């Protein structure tokens, strides 16, 4: 009987901790601006993972075509007519603990390159976005600021 109680208590504790951890991760959801101010990224959750898509561009039009900017550097040529506005540049992040989202990637539309990426929340309104190839220590960090949305 004691064993059953122990198993039951452990299961309850597990579900409590995992749901708490999931809610903690949701703090990243919202609208963010990279340090260069060229774009705004909306981070949202799909299933258990977090994704960020471009929702605003400072210069939305391609100066050569005067049409909305496209993902013209995509390594897959068949996907180069996809617009950058709406593009998911942050993909597949999982919240582990201690204000850190891991195992995701960041896409650089200017080069068409995908980098491994780790996100650290410095405070509720500041993210350190570190992109790297292979070794985390050799990467580059950008600071993103949260944008407040005026609710109607």
């Amino acid at each position, binding site marked *: 009987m004691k064993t059953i109680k122990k198993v039951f208590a452990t299961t309850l504790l597990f579900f409590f901790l995992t749901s708490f951890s999931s809610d903690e991760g949701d703090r990243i959801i919202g609208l963010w601006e990279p340090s260069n101010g060229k774009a705004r990224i909306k981070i949202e959750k799909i299933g258990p993972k977090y994704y960020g898509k471009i929702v605003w561009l400072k210069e939305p039009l391609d100066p050569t075509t005067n049409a909305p900017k496209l993902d013209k550097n995509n390594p*897959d040529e068949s996907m180069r007519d996809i617009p950058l506005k709406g593009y998911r540049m942050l993909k597949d992040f999982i919240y582990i603990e201690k204000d850190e989202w891991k195992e995701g990637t960041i896409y650089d539309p200017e080069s068409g390159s995908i980098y491994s990426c780790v996100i650290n929340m410095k405070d509720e309104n500041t993210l350190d976005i570190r992109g790297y190839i292979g070794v985390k220590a050799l990467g580059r960090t950008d600071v993103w600021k949260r944008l407040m949305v005026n609710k109607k």
Partner: protein
Amino acid sequence: MKLLNLSRIILLLTVAFLIASCGKKNKEKLILEPITLSAEGPYFEGPNSFQGKIGLDVTKFLQEKGYKQDQLKDIKILGASVSFDSLALNIQDLTLQVVSEKESMQKLAFINPLPSGNQNIQLSIAKEQKDLVSYFLGGGILVLDGNFLKEIEENLSFTLNLELELTLKE
């Protein structure tokens, strides 16, 4: 001379191994049951996302045809079309992606710009499609991103039709 014979034997064994491991492969076409992709409105001007779960069509198909799941070696999207009820939609483009708990998000198809006045739209399929089997056997989620040209308050949903090509090992 002995060395030459040995190298011939190794070559023959390698070829025999390759032939045995490849086996004969069948290709089957499967049209999935229509999938509803939805999101609660209102939708703001700019990018909006709609989601729908992949059903058990592939699993059922394998059972009906007498295949085991490990015989399914590859899945390719052959065709994707999206239809919707409202003519009032004012959408610039659509991009279809797939994701699952274990696999990363992958682009499958898109259309840009959306042809006006058409309620059934054929999407352009990505040439590079990698390891789609796990998404279609493991509860994948389909995500349709659309750039809206104006704000829409009513709830919308899209119906997605997918045609797949399944590669199966005998």
